[in-house]
């Protein structure tokens, strides 16, 4: 830490708060917070944690900055496109607050590295964008007994909760699996790339996650323990529900380090297998053949609209009702990123078995358009 005067000046506006004081500031400086995911939720969470003077911050992300991230990830600038998010986040945060220590983990959290990374932190913030990571992080935090600040968004709504924290009232701490015991199947839930998200929403939810972490560290206020807060950005409605530990949750959790390392979180969230997938070049070879029927399983009004081949639209939400009307012997289904189309392919297979050749476009139409950038209406 630099001279006391500089420190006092930087944090003066929060130090003077009732109940916060220099003691609160010291607690922040001594704390260690790991933020998993440096995207829409992670950026604001990281910015406020760093600005507030959390002394040790870890950032985990294996992704690179993309143009479509910038509307909700203001930690990055246009010149950062293509560079590591973890590294760029560290760079920006170090400029924001040179008095704190930031460690960038330019990697994906896996069953093999998660425990070693999480172990050294006091609090974990789940700012990821997929169920595999969410269940992995939850299970690791339960195993290591680390408080987990959960946040998630979809379109105009967000959820925040503090899991795995024993409050003074005692009782069994609630974890993510008490709320949602098992991950949904592919296609049941859309991610941001498929469902869209209002840019400011993860900003609000990520800042709320930082707020929960700061309250937890400093001991001020009331944290979201045993409750889930939902926020609707369209009508400003906040709805808080209370959670309780569920019988049977412990059966779903790995009980030891070995059990955790043996878990397959990728599979958990993709119960339909990927044998139907075809890559872009195979798709391009097949797409104009007369014997092939191509089906867009996205909901109506989803963009972009591809051009250059014929297709019909059967949204996933009504796919099973319409499955009997699919006549061709060869069917290719596609969606935005290739997840919902896998579900559609699985349903086609359940209905038609080997009597049809069934394919799902890997990476969805967004991936196809990367290779065919002019082919959209």
């Amino acid at each position, binding site marked *: 830490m630099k001279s006391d005067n500089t420190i006092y000046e930087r944090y003066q506006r929060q130090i003077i708060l009732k109940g916060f004081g220099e003691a609160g500031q010291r607690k922040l400086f001594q704390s260690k917070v790991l933020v998993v995911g440096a995207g829409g939720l992670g950026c604001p969470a990281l910015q406020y944690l760093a600005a507030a003077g959390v002394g040790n911050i870890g950032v985990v992300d294996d992704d690179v900055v993309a143009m479509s991230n910038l509307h909700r990830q203001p930690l990055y600038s246009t010149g950062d496109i293509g560079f590591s998010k973890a590294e760029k986040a560290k760079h920006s945060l170090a400029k924001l607050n040179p008095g704190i220590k930031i460690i960038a983990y330019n990697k994906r959290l896996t069953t093999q590295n998660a425990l070693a990374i999480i172990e050294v932190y006091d609090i974990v913030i789940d700012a990821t964008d997929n*169920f595999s990571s969410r269940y992995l992080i939850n299970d690791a935090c339960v195993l290591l007994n680390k408080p987990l600040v959960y946040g998630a968004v*979809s379109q105009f*709504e967000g959820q925040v909760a503090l899991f795995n924290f024993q409050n003074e009232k005692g009782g069994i701490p609630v974890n993510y699996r008490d709320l*949602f015991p098992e991950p*949904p199947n592919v296609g049941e*839930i859309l991610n941001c790339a498929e*469902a869209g998200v209002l840019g400011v929403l993860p900003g609000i939810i990520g800042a709320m996650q930082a707020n929960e972490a700061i309250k937890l560290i400093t001991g001020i206020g009331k944290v979201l323990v045993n409750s889930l807060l939902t926020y609707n950005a369209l009508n400003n409605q906040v709805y808080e529900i209370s959670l309780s530990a569920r019988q049977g949750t412990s059966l779903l959790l790995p009980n030891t380090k070995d059990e955790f390392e043996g878990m397959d979180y990728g599979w958990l969230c993709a119960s339909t297998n990927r044998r139907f997938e075809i890559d872009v070049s195979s798709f391009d070879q097949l797409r104009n053949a007369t014997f092939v029927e191509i089906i867009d399983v996205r*909901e109506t009004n989803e963009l972009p609209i591809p051009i250059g081949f014929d297709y019909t639209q059967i949204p996933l*939400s009504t796919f099973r009702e319409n499955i009997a009307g699919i006549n061709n012997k060869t069917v290719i289904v596609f969606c935005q990123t290739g997840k919902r189309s896998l579900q559609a392919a699985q349903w086609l297979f359940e209905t038609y078995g080997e009597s049809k050749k069934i394919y799902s476009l890997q990476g969805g139409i967004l991936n196809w358009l990367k290779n065919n950038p002019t082919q959209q209406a």
Partner: protein
Amino acid sequence: MTINIILFGQLTDITGAGSLTMKDVTDTDSLVVTLQIGYPALISSKFVIAVDKKVISGNTPLTNNCTVALLPPFSGG
């Protein structure tokens, strides 16, 4: 007996509304079945149920004017 139902996330895309009311259902199981008959896409949707702001597990009796919330998991970030 009137039950207030509020829906979150993409469940509202299925029902077309964020809130509904239902008469003469006595427990959460029959409420869900009635909803699924009206909105078949709910059959393949995952959600937790909260009755009067408390998450429940298992079939739970409903009382007049209570509020049932259906919350799907969100993965986005």
